[in-house]
């Protein structure tokens, strides 16, 4: 087939991807955007199928079949609460695909793939021009090396993120030396890339890049705790895009470069948004612990004798006289699968002619936008989901805030206590409301390990117990009056 025509179709596909993401800028156009993007993908794949010659189709068809079944089953069966796990896995597969493409391309150009592990240890004598003449060869080999490295990091990093999100791995492990150990590993991997660029037949070097990349992915993500996962997932999302763009350079393919850079920037921007929302630098999230808290803060001193608790029925009575209510959900709501119960409570409140909105902190949940998806699943209209900057000025006119499963993002210490580890982190100013109800199992601290003075404030009521049960009881009591 005429390569110009193929490239033209790739261009059309690239434009459709761009229109697809543009559609995502509004909830109303988002479904159509996603469809446009999928059409672009179909075009690109079909034209590639038609343009390749002499291919052994058994492997291709087997791969497409297996991939379609696995992907389809995952997509249709996954629960909305588990969406972070799904995205983590997809990131990993993206990285894995780029990794294997780069390796396949390397061995193809090399002209001699090893048939056993021992073969790999014997360097091949090859002409550098196998990968292109002069600077072109150097560039091609560098691109292959970088794709292998980033692809491998994304693969294992995402798998670790998945096991953490699925709570299969609860502890945090790190490389001795922390960032220094990781730094040494990065430098060693770059050296290995250099050795392959200088001597393309050095298969041991290529093997070393793969190995170090896989290790690096493990060591980078294992030390990172649950609440920092939104940053990690966004960053790995970005890596999978960068790896795809690099694979585009290896194959000289325009649509891979366009799509890869869109994904790469998307992940980076989300990473940035998440870091700002936690008032921490990326380096601090990846390598740091939370800053030490100056003098030790004694939880008992803050809570002693000041915490008031209440029963769901009492809250229902208070709700009756409210005019405006804001619900603040957090990861605890996802854990309790309470999103439908929360929607029913909101319906019951609204039935009394009371205004209800939801205040969503950017890092609530385990990935960007996690709470919004859960509440959308429970059929909460998206215009009731209000982001932090817009909801904060309204708390002073709010009669009651119901916090369910959120902690650190409501901690007023972030605003008021200079020297506190979370000082400077933007929070939802729920304490400005006339009454605050916190639904929580106990007074245990959140991810930051800090007591929350909000719980001890005179206008705060604690409702202890399972989030879903407490919400259902409130709804029942409210409906009976």
């Amino acid at each position: 087939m005429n390569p110009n025509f193929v490239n033209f179709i790739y261009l059309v596909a690239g434009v459709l991807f761009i229109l697809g993401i543009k559609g995502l800028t509004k909830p109303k156009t988002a479904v159509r955007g996603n469809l446009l993007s999928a059409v672009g993908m179909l075009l690109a794949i079909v034209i590639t199928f038609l343009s390749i010659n002499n291919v052994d189709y058994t492997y291709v068809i087997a791969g497409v079949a297996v991939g379609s079944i696995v992907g389809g089953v995952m997509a249709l069966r996954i629960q909305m609460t588990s969406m972070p796990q799904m995205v983590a896995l997809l990131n990993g597969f993206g990285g894995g695909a780029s990794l294997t493409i780069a390796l396949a391309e390397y061995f193809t150009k090399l002209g001699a793939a090893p048939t056993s592990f021992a073969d790999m240890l014997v360097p091949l004598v090859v002409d550098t021009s196998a990968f292109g003449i002069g600077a072109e060869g150097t560039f091609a080999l560098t691109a292959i090396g970088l794709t292998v490295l980033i692809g491998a990091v994304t693969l294992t990093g995402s798998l670790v993120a998945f096991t953490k999100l699925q709570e299969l791995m609860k502890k945090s492990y790190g490389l001795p030396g922390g960032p220094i150990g990781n730094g040494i590993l990065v430098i060693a991997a770059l050296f290995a890339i250099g050795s392959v660029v200088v001597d393309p037949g050095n298969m041991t070097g290529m093997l070393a890049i793969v190995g170090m990349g896989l290790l690096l992915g493990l060591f980078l993500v294992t030390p990172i705790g649950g609440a920092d996962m939104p940053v990690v997932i966004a960053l790995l999302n970005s890596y999978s895009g960068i790896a795809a763009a690099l694979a585009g350079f290896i194959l000289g393919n325009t649509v891979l470069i366009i799509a890869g850079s869109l994904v790469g920037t998307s992940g980076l921007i989300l990473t940035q948004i998440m870091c700002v929302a936690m008032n921490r630098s990326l380096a601090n999230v990846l390598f740091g612990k939370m800053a030490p808290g100056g003098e030790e803060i004694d939880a008992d001193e803050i809570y002693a004798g000041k915490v008031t608790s209440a029963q769901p029925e009492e809250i229902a009575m208070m709700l009756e006289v409210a005019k405006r209510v804001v619900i603040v959900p957090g990861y605890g709501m996802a854990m309790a699968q309470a999103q439908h119960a929360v929607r029913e409570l909101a319906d019951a409140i609204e039935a009394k002619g009371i205004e209800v909105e939801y205040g969503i902190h950017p890092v609530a949940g385990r990935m960007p936008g996690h709470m919004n998806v859960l509440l959308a699943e429970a059929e909460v209209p998206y215009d009731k989901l209000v982001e932090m900057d817009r909801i904060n000025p309204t708390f002073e006119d709010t009669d009651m805030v119901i916090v369910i499963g959120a902690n650190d993002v409501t901690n007023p210490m972030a605003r008021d206590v200079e020297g506190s580890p979370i000082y400077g982190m933007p929070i939802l100013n729920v304490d400005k409301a006339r009454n605050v109800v916190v639904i929580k199992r106990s007074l245990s601290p959140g991810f930051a390990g800090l007591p929350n003075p909000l719980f001890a404030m005179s206008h705060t009521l604690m409702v202890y117990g399972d989030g879903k049960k407490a919400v259902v009881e409130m709804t029942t009591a409210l409906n009976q009056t």
Partner: protein
Amino acid sequence: MEVLILLLALFALSLFLGVELITKVPPTLHTPLMSGTNAVSGITLVGALLAAGTDGSPMLVNILGFIAVTFATINVVGGYLVTNRMLAMFERK
């Protein structure tokens, strides 16, 4: 070399376009944005098909090609389906 420069130009412009586009996506849609871009990054399927190996290429290349095609297809199929599922929930109201 000319081709390389053109590819680099495309890369640079796409990065700027990406920044312009993504910053306009509202936080409500950040999760579908991530799964949707995951689907887009399944474009590596095109690369995987190209690299899957021609007739008579060594076994190792075939296996690598098979893995690449499988992974990329999971991203494409899984990514678009799950994104569609989520977005349909937002569209309902």
